[in-house]
């Protein structure tokens, strides 16, 4: 789950906390001074200067002391800046893997409509980077991904070794999903035919579908 101020503050030493305080002030300033909406469609011909808080967002890793603290700081910055759809897309598409993770994890808190947030989730689900996959199958995906895309996301987690613990509301969405059950069984059969072990998580997910069927 996300680290909000008390938790994230505990992760930071004194210089890092001072750095984050300054960064949050800049993000709060940005929240009060929304840039013109040209970024919503296409970037302008000449690039405007990068907002100060976005440079902080990019450099959080070397100021916060640990990957976990940097991730929490980045999420806080996104929330504090009240990042909208254009900003989230810009920071995601121009971001490192760590920055992209932060955008994906922050999506449920940014009041970004599925029409704008889902393309970022879908982009991450197309990668084979397990850090991005794990961040993509969080609460935003649970709330907004359609059934087909969500089932493929679960299967891709199994395929790439992302623990299904990362999948938000797995039990809720798997309940009674016979198509997911079929896909899991087929994947298990494919693994077995190849003489390869079936991931334990697959049995867990399958149980969530079948147990629901038995109880319904």
């Amino acid at each position, binding site marked *: 789950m996300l680290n909000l101020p008390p938790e994230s503050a505990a992760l930071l030493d004194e210089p890092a906390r001072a750095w984050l305080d300054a960064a949050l002030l800049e993000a709060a300033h940005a929240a009060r001074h929304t840039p013109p909406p040209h970024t919503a469609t296409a970037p302008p011909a*000449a*690039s405007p*200067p*990068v907002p100060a808080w*976005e*440079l902080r967002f*990019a*450099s*959080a*890793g*070397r100021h916060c002391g640990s*990957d976990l603290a*940097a991730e929490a700081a980045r999420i806080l910055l996104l929330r504090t800046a009240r990042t909208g759809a254009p900003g989230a897309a810009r920071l995601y*598409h*121009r*971001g*490192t*893997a*760590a*920055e*992209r993770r932060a955008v994906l994890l922050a999506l449920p808190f940014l009041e970004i409509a599925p029409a704008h947030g889902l393309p970022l989730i879908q982009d991450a689900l197309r*990668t*084979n*980077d*397990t*850090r*991005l996959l*794990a961040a993509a199958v969080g609460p935003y995906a649970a709330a907004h991904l359609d059934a087909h895309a969500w089932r493929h996301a679960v299967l891709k987690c199994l*395929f*790439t*070794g*992302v*623990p299904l613990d*990362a999948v938000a509301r797995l039990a809720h969405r798997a309940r009674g999903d016979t198509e997911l059950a079929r896909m899991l069984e087929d994947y298990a059969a494919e693994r077995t035919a*190849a003489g*390869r*072990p079936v*991931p*334990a*998580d697959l049995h867990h997910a399958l149980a969530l579908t079948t147990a629901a069927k038995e109880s319904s």
Partner: protein
Amino acid sequence: MRIFDPHIHMTSRTTGDYEAMYAAGVRAVVEPSFWLGQPRTSPASFFDYFDSLLGWEPFRAAQYGITHHCTLALNPKEANDPRCTPVLDELPRYLAKDPVVAVGEIGYDSMTPAEDTALATQLQLAADHGLPALVHTPHRDKLTGLRRTLDVVRESALPCERVLLDHLNETTVAEARNSGAWLGFSVYPDTKMDEARMVALLKQHGTERILVNSAADWGKSDPLKTRKVGDAMLEAGFSDDDVDEVLWRNPVAFYALSGRLDLHLTQPEPLHEGNSILRGGE
């Protein structure tokens, strides 16, 4: 033998290379942004490439126990193509990023006015972002290119002590050393330097501020050349400490000038078995 390859283009290499590099002692690499072997036609191609250097390639490297940083820039060759030069406007955003430990590769290819402009502009960007610079010396007309490079560096806001001059050889090492810059040597199967010449050069010029790289890419090259130089140094009577200085401590010291070098390996999410790369073909 612990090895830091300070210049290698891993996007062109296979997972088998990563395995072999780890087995040979490579624990850290820096991947400079460069030409792809064919021309790019828009800044968007650079952004996709930067994405690889900032995301996918570090992920791949981590699977094999190797930390991966990068240097970003508009390369000298494509500095001459007006379809590519707008990437300079986007570089400030990218140079702020944690895994970027230098501006590079910059420098000269054909020594054109457009290359002058790109080199000077990016040396200034390095100074503005607190980054050192990886400066490639040209393959053709190298000594003249080195002198012109040093002129531009001396006129820039970036001190020579924050510059790594790369692809040096016997004809350029003395002038490069006198500049105060760090000295990079690329060891190749047929071109650039080879192991025996590298050892002879180290005997003559010492180990201080000298870095050895494989510069392995999509061409005929060998990602294990760093190890082969280490072995050749030991055979020639250099000590383990000398080898460690050249193959580890010098590259660490140079890229640590960025304040961003993090040699702690962040493993990806815990995996049940194998990983997505090993299993990707299933």
